[in-house]
């Protein structure tokens, strides 16, 4: 897969929130370079607050970085590119006043899909996530897992080459998460999508990813890239294999030091916060 063409080129991207000296000044991300290959699933994993969401927002054009550039399909990213990139967020970003079906159609309307294609595409994407029977339910009537599947269906209906997923299963229980991971792997094997997937779960990263980018503590940057050579769709048996365990342990060792470092750097911040500083 390393020989494939580059879907997303991240060059020396850094981002800081606020200006130096301000109370809310945070250097979230520093000098990050990374190429995402077309059709691969790249997992971003790292300590909390190391800038994974920031990087995803930069790729998606929702945030202009203070340094570096991102190219998608050869074009520099300057704002949202709804034709190329779809998003699935951690919390439910479905519109609560619309049914699942209406949500999917609304996404297509925003993206500019001709109306004649709405019904067919909505139906297909709902079937792909196994929610066909719940098309007319409101998000409030669905379970957390179903809501995230609906959000995924909305993103799939946009038929973009790239899918950015920020801890999409983060709020779900371990079992639901595993099932959704398996389904996603199946889906991935069928489509040619490039996926960047943020997760905190080591197991999820190894199970889903073609490559895992391990981030250092804030200001974050890619510390190491780990390859997972295992074809999609991944078999549930993969989870119990030695290869899986070895990769998972390798990730754990890499992360462990960074999380310690992150927690250590949090401590003085927290004390300052207690004196009425930045939250």
């Amino acid at each position, binding site marked *: 897969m390393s020989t494939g063409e580059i879907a997303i080129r991240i060059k020396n991207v850094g981002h800081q929130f606020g200006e130096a000296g301000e109370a809310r000044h945070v250097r979230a991300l520093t000098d990050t370079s990374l190429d995402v290959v077309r059709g691969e699933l790249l997992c971003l994993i790292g300590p909390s607050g190391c800038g994974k969401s920031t990087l995803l927002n930069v790729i998606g054009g*929702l945030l202009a970085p203070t340094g570096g550039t991102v190219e998608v399909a050869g074009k520099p990213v300057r704002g*949202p590119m*709804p034709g190329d990139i779809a*998003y699935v*967020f951690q919390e439910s*970003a479905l*519109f*609560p*006043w619309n049914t699942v079906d209406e949500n999917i159609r609304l996404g297509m309307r*925003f993206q500019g899909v001709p109306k004649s294609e709405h019904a067919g595409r909505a139906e297909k994407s709902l079937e792909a996530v196994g929610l066909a029977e719940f098309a007319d339910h409101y998000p409030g009537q669905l379970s957390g897992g179903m809501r995230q599947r609906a959000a995924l269906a909305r993103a799939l209906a946009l038929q973009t080459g790239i899918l950015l997923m920020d801890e999409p299963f983060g709020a779900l229980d371990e079992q639901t998460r595993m099932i959704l991971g398996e389904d996603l792997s199946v889906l991935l094997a069928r489509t040619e999508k490039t996926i960047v997937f943020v997760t905190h779960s080591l197991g999820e990263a190894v199970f889903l990813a073609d490559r895992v980018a391990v981030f250092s503590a804030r200001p974050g940057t890619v510390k190491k890239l780990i390859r997972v050579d295992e074809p999609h769709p991944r078999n549930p048996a993969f989870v119990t294999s030695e290869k899986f365990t070895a990769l998972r342990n390798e990730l754990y060792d890499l992360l462990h030091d960074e999380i310690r470092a992150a927690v250590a750097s949090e401590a003085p911040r927290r004390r300052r916060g207690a004196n009425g500083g930045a939250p």
Partner: protein
Amino acid sequence: MTSIRSSGVATTARPRAGEDPVLSSPLDSRLRGNERIKAARTFLLRHPGIVRLGAVVVILLVWEIAARFFMDPMFISPPSRVFASLGRVLHTAGVPDALQLTFFELAVGFAIAVAIGLPLGLAIGLQPFARRSLMPIVLLVYGMPKITILPLFILFFGIGPESKIAFGVAHGVFPIIITIVAGVQNLKPILLVSARSMGASRWQMLRWVIFPHMIPSFFAGMRLGMSGVLLGVLLAELYVSTAGIGYFTTMFTENFQPTKLFGLIAMLAAMAIALNEMVRRAEHRFNRWR
């Protein structure tokens, strides 16, 4: 769970059915009384309308008795007589015109209050800078008793319907702005971000994200605005009495005609309730997803 409970009922029911004088002790009958009270309570809790109706009947009854036997008929009139007089009030020369005029002032005032309050509320609510700079002014003017500057309204807008409408707007527009601003602010930012990521234009975000989110606070604002306009219009009418309901309430009061006064107020209340109910019905239609 259910099986345990039903078998429990069966055992307590047995002595009741099997008329055994020894077993149906006073304790048992008290228990049965408790059960009846409990059943009545659950019935009432399921039908709040009955309690509401009861409360209104009690109030009317107290009023009727007080007005008939204890109070000076110059100052108060029993509800029975008020209702009986409704037709007469309606046929008093000038009253139909007054009702019409007040209703017109209300409608125009309300339309203007919404037309100003809605866009202003959205503009202030959607922009943090506007909120920080302008919101304190809105709250200040909202909190100010506007009755103190009613003479200014008369000065600017004359003694005709214009000043009543303007004063109604002054009362109605601020609750609308404040509710809309509060409503905009509890919109989850992720919904706007996700709409933007899917390519929504500014107009599309307004139409498909902000508006649907605003519907509950929009209706809340409409209702508060409506009562504000009603208050403003009537206050102005009471102050400068040349026409409208306010004119007649002043006249009936000064001529000691409480029956007609209350009749007029009853009509006014009916008007307010009808308007409120219309807003509520419309609101209900938009809130299917809740």
